[in-house]
């Protein structure tokens, strides 16, 4: 008798399925694909920040040998507005509103010819007054960015978040507003013993995906469009492309080659994508359009820059009483997802800690700056930066230990917050205590306070911050679901067709793992297909830390249906009750003894060929039990919530302002660890991305122009700069999560800037509310009395 012991893949260190191809250079990204007959597209961008286009002369460009098409807005009368705000056309015809604006496009036989052709295009501009300071956007007489109403009524208004400004508001440069309130702020303030009130300034950073933006568009003879696209939301884009192009969505197929980094940057449609389609249409040839790195810096989205005022109060015992938050979002020239980050920001303001009274207001205004999109953390880095600094400030004013201050106000499991979020599992308290104990927070904090005034230029300090983020999807669209098709062949090999996209985060591996766990098969018995809208079922997209949770539950659902079918068949063949059978290591076994009764492959073949002429193929669509927010932004938008506390230890050189991150101790409520290797990678990568946001990265935009469009002066963190990391997982076993897991993709980046700010303050006694903590910024803050005013 062969006995097969029960085993589990959950919590193990599992190598990514696509890693061997990637590590050997065989993976073909969009940049690496060339189609027969392919032309190369290139875009002429505005030479001005804000101007009317008087004249465009493309005749010389068209005459250049090797040029197949030169397009301006006049050549594409059918183009329709795109993006979240539907406030721009792919090719700009009347005026330009930022330096990234697309004025003309070329398709040519080589990239060199395309670029030579761009240089031959003559554009005559008439400059308009420029608006680059968002705080001046609402002043009387401010330049008007959008005078005209481009947007036709949207056919799916339910997709439109917030309160999009109407035509009148547009004229006053308001793109969007958000208002949220709970309780009675005045009453809260009246019962406060201390109040803090500060301005925080959050800067521009950008995604810097190592793979630059790119797309290949091709039409077949029947007019069907295939896009080889890096999108994170293929199914939403299929619909939106159809709308922009005036096509039947059924004729659009989106294939996602492996993506060289996403981080939220690929959630919106950007003009280069429909422009590639226009060029393909005009030439009848496949058109590939790939950015240079400089173009990537100039013409891809940024994280939302925010000017934020926060007032918070507390009672003498540390209990929070109220919070009032007002933010000004610099939308840039157009509205993308950055404008809607208040959805997430207000959750942190209202619900990271228990606050009875709270109000939140955002105005997003148009300027002539680059426009902001979604970026890992989605506003939460900004909100947490303010909230967690004020937790320290309140603690200091009250003479309470900062950890104690947080524990006193921490959310607990079961809590339903005034905003309507229901924390069925909540590990915040364990996160706080675990991170504090593992890092020696209390002792180090006290020691650094005592040493602040000691001589020497090296100051050590420690700071903490916590975070709350959606961990079970986010119900923003009509559905937050994901579909799975699962088929098993005659040899027990599974093909998992999932709507969930892989962007490097490891979703295909964790989905395969979850299916293996259900079906008792080894990982190499699964092939994941996840990159073709003609094959895979619908999914809302890879965002909001949702893929493991939503895609995972969907995959489990399909696997369980397959398992039920297999066990029912096996029960008949073996003459044993279904409940007594299990699937292990490719076999049907007796659950109690582990005795192997037959191989799974053999059972499948018998089912296929002899018994019932049946294949095992199942489908499942998982929709999380979350709810849309109401008009007042209240509702339980996620099926689960992720929590974390990070403690950052810094060393500040007061002679230079250099802040070095020494160590990060993180405690993350992840529900349950599924793939330890993968989740560690997510946390480590997120910590370093958060470090970049806090310390090194700064997209310098002056007068609407990006001054540092390259890695030379836009400084990503390099290997020698990373801190020591000590990561702890808090497993709260979420009831709705796949095997108990919650989403974690965005969480690790969120606390870093706030914790670093608190650590710098602990080290030096100086609180800086202005990111990033670059050496000169920190030095100026430390030597404020001596520093001359910096030119804005």
């Amino acid at each position: 008798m062969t006995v097969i012991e029960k085993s589990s893949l959950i919590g193990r260190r599992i190598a990514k399925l696509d890693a061997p191809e990637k590590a050997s250079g065989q993976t073909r990204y969009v940049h690496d694909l060339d189609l027969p007959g392919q032309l190369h597209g290139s875009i002429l961008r505005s030479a001005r920040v804000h101007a009317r286009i008087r004249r465009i002369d493309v005749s010389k460009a068209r005459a250049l040998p090797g040029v197949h098409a030169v397009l301006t807005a006049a050549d594409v009368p059918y183009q329709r507005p795109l993006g979240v705000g539907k406030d721009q056309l792919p090719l700009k015809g009347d005026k330009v509103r930022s330096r990234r604006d697309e004025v003309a496009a070329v398709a040519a036989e080589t990239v060199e010819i395309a670029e030579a052709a761009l240089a031959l295009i003559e554009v005559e501009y008439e400059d308009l007054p420029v608006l680059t300071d968002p705080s001046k956007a609402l002043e009387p007489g401010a330049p008007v960015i959008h005078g005209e109403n481009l947007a036709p009524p949207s056919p799916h208004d339910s997709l439109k978040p917030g309160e999009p400004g109407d035509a009148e508001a547009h004229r006053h440069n308001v793109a969007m507003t958000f208002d949220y309130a709970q309780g009675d702020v005045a009453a809260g303030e009246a019962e406060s013993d201390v109040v803090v009130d500060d301005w925080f300034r959050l800067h521009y950073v950008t995604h810097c995906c190592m793979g630059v933006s790119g797309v290949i568009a091709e039409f077949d003879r029947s007019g069907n469009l295939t896009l080889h696209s890096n999108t994170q939301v293929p199914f939403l884009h299929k619909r939106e492309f159809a709308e922009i192009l005036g096509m039947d969505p059924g004729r659009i197929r989106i294939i996602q080659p492996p993506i060289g980094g996403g981080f939220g940057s690929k959630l919106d449609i950007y003009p280069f994508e429909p422009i590639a389609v226009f060029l393909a249409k005009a030439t009848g040839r496949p058109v590939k359009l790939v950015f240079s790195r400089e173009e990537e810096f100039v013409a891809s989205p940024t994280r939302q820059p925010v000017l934020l005022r926060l007032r918070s109060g507390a009672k003498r015992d540390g209990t929070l009483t109220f919070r009032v938050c007002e933010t000004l979002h610099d939308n840039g020239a157009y509205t993308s997802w950055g404008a809607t980050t208040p959805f997430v920001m207000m959750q942190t303001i209202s619900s990271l800690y228990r606050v009875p009274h709270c109000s939140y207001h955002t105005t997003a205004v148009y300027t002539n700056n680059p426009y902001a999109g979604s970026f890992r953390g989605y506003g939460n880095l900004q909100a947490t930066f303010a909230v967690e600094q004020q937790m320290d400030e309140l603690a200091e004013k009250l003479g309470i230990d900062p950890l104690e201050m947080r524990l006193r106000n921490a959310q607990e499991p079961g809590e339903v917050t005034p905003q309507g979020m229901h924390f069925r599992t909540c590990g915040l308290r364990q996160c706080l205590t675990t991170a504090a104990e593992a890092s020696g927070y209390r002792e180090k904090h006290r020691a650094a306070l005592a040493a602040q005034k000691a001589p020497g230029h090296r100051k050590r300090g420690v700071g903490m911050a916590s975070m709350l983020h959606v961990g079970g999807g986010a119900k923003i669209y009509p559905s937050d679901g994901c579909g799975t098709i699962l088929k098993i062949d005659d040899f027990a090999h599974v093909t998992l067709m999932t709507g969930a996209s892989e962007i490097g985060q490891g979703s295909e591996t964790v989905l395969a793992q979850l299916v293996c766990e259900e079906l008792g098969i080894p990982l190499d018995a699964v092939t994941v297909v996840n990159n073709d809208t003609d094959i895979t079922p619908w999914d809302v997209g890879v965002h909001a830390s949702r893929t493991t949770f939503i895609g995972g539950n969907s995959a489990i659902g399909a696997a369980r249906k397959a398992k039920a079918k297999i066990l029912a068949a096996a029960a008949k063949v073996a003459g044993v009750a279904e409940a007594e059978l299990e699937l292990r290591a490719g076999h049907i076994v007796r659950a109690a003894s582990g005795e192997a009764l037959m191989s799974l492959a053999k059972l499948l073949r018998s089912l296929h060929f002899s018994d019932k002429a049946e294949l095992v193929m199942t489908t499942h669509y998982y929709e999380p039990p979350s709810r849309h927010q109401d008009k007042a932004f209240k509702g339980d938008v996620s099926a689960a919530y992720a929590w974390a506390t990070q403690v950052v230890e810094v060393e500040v050189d007061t002679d230079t302002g250099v802040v070095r991150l020494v160590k990060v101790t993180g405690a993350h409520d992840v529900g349950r660890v599924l793939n330890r290797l993968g989740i560690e990678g997510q946390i480590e990568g997120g910590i370093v991305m958060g470090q970049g946001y806090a310390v090194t990265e700064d997209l310098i935009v002056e007068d609407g122009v990006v001054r540092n469009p390259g890695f030379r002066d836009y400084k990503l963190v390099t290997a020698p700069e990373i801190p020591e990391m000590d990561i702890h997982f808090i497993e709260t076993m979420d009831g709705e999560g796949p095997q108990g897991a919650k989403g974690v993709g965005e969480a690790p980046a969120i606390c870093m800037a706030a914790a670093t700010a608190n650590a710098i303050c602990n080290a030096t006694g100086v609180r800086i509310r202005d990111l990033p903590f670059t050496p000169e910024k920190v030095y100026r803050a430390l030597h404020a009395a001596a520093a001359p005013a910096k030119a804005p």
Partner: protein
Amino acid sequence: MSHMREIEFELNGVRTRATVRLDMSALAMLRDVMGLTGTKYACGEGECGACTIIVDGVSVCSCLMFAVDCEDRTLTTIEGVGREPLGARLERAFVDCGAVQCGFCTPGVVMQAKHWLEAHPNPTRDEIKRGIEGNLCRCTGYVKIVDAIEAASRAEG
């Protein structure tokens, strides 16, 4: 348009001939002329290391090298490095240690690690970090990349 020139060199162990534009980079030659797309473009100014190859035994950014300067030299790219024991060990370690996420930087890091380990056979973790300071990775936070290089340096044959 710049003129062309035919050059000869050794590429991944094979004597190779290519016709290249005089102003073309070695990266463009590898990708567009030779069709070897494992070497990646990510910045074009030597700041990210995604295009790292090994030329005459040392790692360089192929985006900074003129293709004509490859004449008579010996080039190894990611497509060839796996045939050498250390290269194969590195590729395996990158997989096993979770050093790959989106994977776009990975070929360049593997190439740089290969050169670095040849020059520094028993590196400390800090030395490994210095060794790959010219390779940007946006996904991993470098920890698992350092793990992988360390593991490859310790593994036998």
